[in-house]
């Protein structure tokens, strides 16, 4: 199911959460809504789900205008940041909830629940309670629960935010694979740009209730539409007047044309890369990132003078 959001606006009292947002996603796509806290991305997601009603604008799902349809009739699967498990029900009853509401016959529910638990690798846990599951397991249960009723659209609100780093990485990859298998139109909300870039086919960057840019991960990273996108989606450093990504800097120990002179304040070994914290003669900071090999070849130390030249400039492409 494709989704079209047109001129949608939502305020809470004086606070404008979503300010005239328009965008569309293709059927079967995997889209990220990326932005800082308070950017309106979660509100937008809830508006699409029908959990909030817009003050203005339309929400069209699969060609049908659903703006006035209540959430329970929109056939939308929703996964919450803190999983929202029905803590008084077993995993089996959780996953089967939507089917029970629809009065699906019991044996069909049992079959479908078993199928889904296998899909999310929770086969042996059917009779456990959410309190007996880890965070990652609860989230997988929540996904199974949302998918049980075969929704036309799957919405996830910061689904991995409450998990620790390793589990988060696993579940990201797993979500991508799941989407390849199940092909439901999926939108997920995140404030983590690495997550958005890794998982999504298309990223919608939001800030203060408005859309800053829509594009593929590469578009958004290499051709940011505004200063905000530039700074939010990846690291930025300034050399002279130009904005550059720290890893697009050439660092030499000998002067070169167009290179800026700077002193190394600190060499930080990040394992796979080396970050150099530099300061120019005017006292302006520059952050450069080079490979470990390059750092070894240059034999860099604190206090050393180096010459820095951008090899690819970053400019906001309006």
């Amino acid at each position, binding site marked *: 199911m494709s989704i079209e959001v047109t001129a949608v606006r939502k305020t809470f009292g004086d606070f404008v959460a979503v300010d005239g947002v328009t965008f569309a996603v293709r059927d079967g796509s995997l889209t990220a809504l990326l932005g800082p806290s308070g950017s309106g991305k979660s509100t937008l997601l809830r508006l699409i*789900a*029908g*959990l909030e009603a817009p003050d203005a604008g339309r929400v069209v799902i699969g060609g049908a205008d659903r703006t006035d349809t*209540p*959430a*329970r*009739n*929109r056939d*939308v*699967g*929703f996964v*919450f940041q*803190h999983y*929202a*498990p*029905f*803590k*008084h029900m077993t995993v089996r009853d959780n996953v089967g*909830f*939507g089917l029970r*509401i*629809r009065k699906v016959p019991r044996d069909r529910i049992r079959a479908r629940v078993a199928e889904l638990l296998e899909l999310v690798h929770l086969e042996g846990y059917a009779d456990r*309670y*959410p*309190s007996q599951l880890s965070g990652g397991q609860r989230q997988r249960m*929540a996904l199974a*629960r*949302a998918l049980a*009723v075969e929704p036309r659209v799957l919405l996830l609100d910061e689904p991995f935010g409450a998990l620790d780093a390793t589990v988060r990485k696993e579940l990201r990859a797993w979500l991508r694979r799941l989407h390849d298998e199940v092909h439901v139109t999926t939108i997920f909300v995140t404030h983590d740009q690495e997550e958005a870039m890794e998982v999504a086919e298309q990223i919608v960057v939001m800030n203060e209730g408005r859309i800053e840019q829509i594009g593929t991960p590469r578009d958004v990273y290499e051709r940011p539409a505004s200063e905000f996108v530039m700074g939010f989606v990846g690291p930025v450093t300034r050399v002279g007047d130009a904005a550059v990504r720290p890893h697009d800097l050439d660092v030499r120990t000998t002067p070169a044309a167009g290179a800026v002179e700077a002193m190394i304040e600190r060499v930080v070994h990040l394992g796979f890369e080396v970050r150099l914290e530099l300061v120019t003669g005017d006292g302006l900071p520059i952050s450069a990132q080079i490979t470990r090999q390059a750092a070894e070849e240059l034999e860099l130390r604190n206090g050393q003078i180096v010459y820095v030249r951008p090899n690819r400039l970053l400019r906001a492409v309006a």
Partner: protein
Amino acid sequence: MDGGLSGFWQAVSGPEARSALELTFLISLIVVAINALAGTLIAWVLVRDRFRGMGTVNAVIDLPFALPTIVAGLTLLALYGPRSPVRIDVSYARVGVAMALLFVTLPFVVRAVQPVLMELDRDMEDAAVSLGASGRQVFARIVLPNILPAILSGIALAFARAIGEFGSVVLISGNLPFKTEVASVFIFGRIESDNVTAAAAVSVVLLVASLLMLAAIGAAARWGGRHEL
């Protein structure tokens, strides 16, 4: 205790004692059931609704806790007794006793349910809605199971209070033996007439019931916490 076990049994199974106990338990049960429903409704409105004067209403709920029982009894008699301005006279009748107990036990279920309702994860209800549940289904399948332990806790405390209530009942009921005499009034009467054995016997029954209610509250709390994340 003079008289020993057989004296105890005799005192407790005497017709007036038995009638007082039966009346007490029956009316308390009915009253507590009504206030369980009303209390849950009031708690729901206080937590989920928003209107002017809500803070005052919330404070007023505690009135039966703060008001001396004898004053409560007098006020109920004024409104629902012989000189009632609304022409309702339930004095000297069981309904009068019930009204007094309704007043006195009103806050228990409300105050037990309120904090639990406030802590309830709204995401669970949203999740149920997104899965297709109607408002009524969300309440019955999601909210109610999670507030049930609190409701039961409130019921147990209200019941313990109701069976022992004295001050608010003693004026409106008229204390007619076999008709409107509740256990606490029976006990009081027996103390006055120096029949301490009978008083003690019925007291023991009330005490045992109270202790059972306390145990029930503890059990409800443990039962309620069993699925906590």
